[in-house]
């Protein structure tokens, strides 16, 4: 924990709010800014070169799909994403880094996938995109790509504090038959080997990610569920707020890391 980093965080809280946060979060960062490492740096050279390949990176297929879906008119209103949002390059830049967030008004924590699904059902009147459907992943990747290179940054919403706290305690909680917490692997043992793999920091800056194990694109939620399976814990149901809170904590923990999509991991 670097003092400078802590100071920066403190300054951040002050800037955002001078009282906007009723109580300042009690969280301390376990990783200083200069210690943050994308999961890519824990991968082998083959995975790294596949991600860097501007032709063969399989995520690009979903990106192309997302691009065509963006302009595709669907539903009873015959609306496309572009009809409301215009061209992606302008309207979607910086959008992906704001998630997970709380919707204006009331409601529970949502991630980008939730927002896209809500748009699709409420505005376009089509409810065909389930979790991990190709269309949803393609659109999520397409929107995320507009924020490529931008650092992860939590939105300065004081209402997030309680969810952040919940995510932090979930990260620390030992669970499953192996009785492991996220922190035990990704904070305390990062960089060491788990069988043939390097334990990464568990950074959320490459999602939706093309994972060779999955042979397809997948969301952060799916990745978290993989970890749940790995420690033999029962996963919360799809769309559970707990997963959003955990993702929120991960985003806070990785603040400063640039978004890298389409990412490839083992």
């Amino acid at each position, binding site marked *: 924990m670097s003092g400078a980093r802590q100071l920066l965080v403190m300054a951040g809280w002050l800037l955002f709010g001078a009282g906007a946060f009723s109580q300042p979060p009690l969280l301390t960062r376990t990783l200083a800014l200069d210690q943050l490492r994308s999961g890519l740096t824990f991968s082998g050279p083959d995975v790294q070169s596949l991600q860097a390949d501007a*032709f*063969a990176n399989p995520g690009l*297929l979903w990106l192309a*799909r997302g691009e065509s879906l963006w302009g595709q008119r669907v539903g009873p209103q015959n609306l496309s994403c572009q009809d409301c949002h215009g061209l992606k390059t302008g309207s979607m830049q910086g959008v992906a880094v704001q998630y997970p967030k709380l919707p204006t008004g009331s409601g529970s924590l949502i991630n980008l996938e939730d927002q896209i699904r809500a748009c699709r059902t409420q505005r376009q009147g089509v409810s065909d995109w389930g979790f991990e459907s190709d269309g949803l992943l393609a659109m999520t990747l397409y929107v995320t790509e507009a924020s490529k290179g931008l650092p992860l940054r939590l939105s300065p919403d004081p209402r997030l504090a309680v969810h952040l706290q919940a995510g932090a305690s979930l990260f620390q909680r030992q669970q499953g038959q192996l009785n492991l917490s996220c922190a035990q692997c990704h904070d305390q043992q990062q960089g060491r080997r788990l069988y043939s793999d390097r334990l990464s920091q568990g950074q959320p800056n490459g999602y939706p990610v093309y994972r060779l194990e999955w*042979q397809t694109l997948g969301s952060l939620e799916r990745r978290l569920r993989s970890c749940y399976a790995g420690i033999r814990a029962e996963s919360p149901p799809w769309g559970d707020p707990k997963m959003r809170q955990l993702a929120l904590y991960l985003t806070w923990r990785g603040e400063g890391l640039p978004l890298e999509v389409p990412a490839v991991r083992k």
Partner: protein
Amino acid sequence: MNQGLARLQWPQNIVAGDVVKVRLLVQHPMHTGYQQDMQGSVIARNVLLWLTCTLGDQQVFRVEPSSGIAANPYFEFFVRARASADMVVRWQDDLGVVGKWQQRMVVVERQTPGP
């Protein structure tokens, strides 16, 4: 009209007679028949049965990938480019779904040295 999704790439400037590397990426799940979906039920086998590439009127590449090939298969091969022509990729899978992807390969004439 394209059906399905693929990516094709070759060098930007091709002179007639050049041997060029063609890179091809096809979106396909290549389900082996042994995988399970999120609910735990078995996904029926669905792999590419065949895939062909035709440059102009000549077939330049054919492969029968079967189930040993990873999802979203990637292929590389070399062709001698003689004149501008369409590269047409066609494929069919176990479900009978037919794919087609077409892209124009532009080839310029070789400049003969002046007197």
